């Protein structure tokens, strides 16, 4: 798993690239926690270079999404590849998490 951050139009874009396995999920949660604690509550997760994710990793997105929803911020997921999108749909999370085809669309 590789994480990087960019800022555009007042939104923090977190690129989550590569494979998110069970052991990575704790680090992913900590990364988002630190951003939120630093006051960055308008977040887009760029998943376009993610090639694998387990349910524990999806659970991180659920936790962050709910936390930001309660405080007036947001988390949007952008550009998941078909295999990742399939996992999101099988778990029903396409009915919870805001999904966008690209970062550009998530920023609109």
């Amino acid at each position: 798993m590789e994480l990087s951050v960019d800022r555009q139009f007042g939104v923090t874009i977190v690129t989550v690239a590569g494979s998110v396995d069970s052991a990575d999920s704790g680090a992913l949660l900590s990364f988002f926690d630190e951003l939120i604690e630093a006051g960055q509550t308008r977040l887009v997760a760029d998943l376009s270079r993610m090639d694998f994710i387990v349910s524990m990793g999806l659970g991180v997105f659920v936790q962050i999404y709910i936390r930001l929803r309660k405080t007036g911020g947001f988390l949007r997921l952008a550009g998941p590849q078909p295999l990742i999108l399939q996992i999101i749909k099988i778990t029903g999370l396409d009915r919870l998490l805001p999904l966008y085809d690209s970062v550009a669309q998530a920023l609109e």
Partner: protein
Amino acid sequence: MSKAKIFQSLTIASELTATRQVEQHLFTQLRAQNYPDDCLFAIRLALEEALSNAIKHGNHLDPAKMVTVRFSINPDEIQLTIIDQGQGFDPLVVPDPTTKEHLEDPNGRGIMLMRAYMDEVSYNLKGNEVRMVKRIRPSRSKQAG
């Protein structure tokens, strides 16, 4: 490596990073058997989910407890058995994570993914041992892999 039937067993510590040892060992052999990429993805996902359940929910990350993985590989099928040293559980009482009541739960999606991506998933009576089967039928494989 020849395309012969392979039986092996591995034992790992109750640490989430230990799942990578199993995957590295197993996938070297699956690639040698020319398993297609969609099947490798499905097997990796189901294996990760089963191992993390065993380590986290079965053994509660107890360093004194181990997880055993047994696998049988044929050119057309893989069988995986994951055994933890916990108290077990009843998979029938695990709620459907796609329902409105549970959609916002942070956990509870692993068994659903295992069932979606493998052809068979079954537990022993105690609930501390899960057996999974994936059949390799490239032209007729399930939608999920």
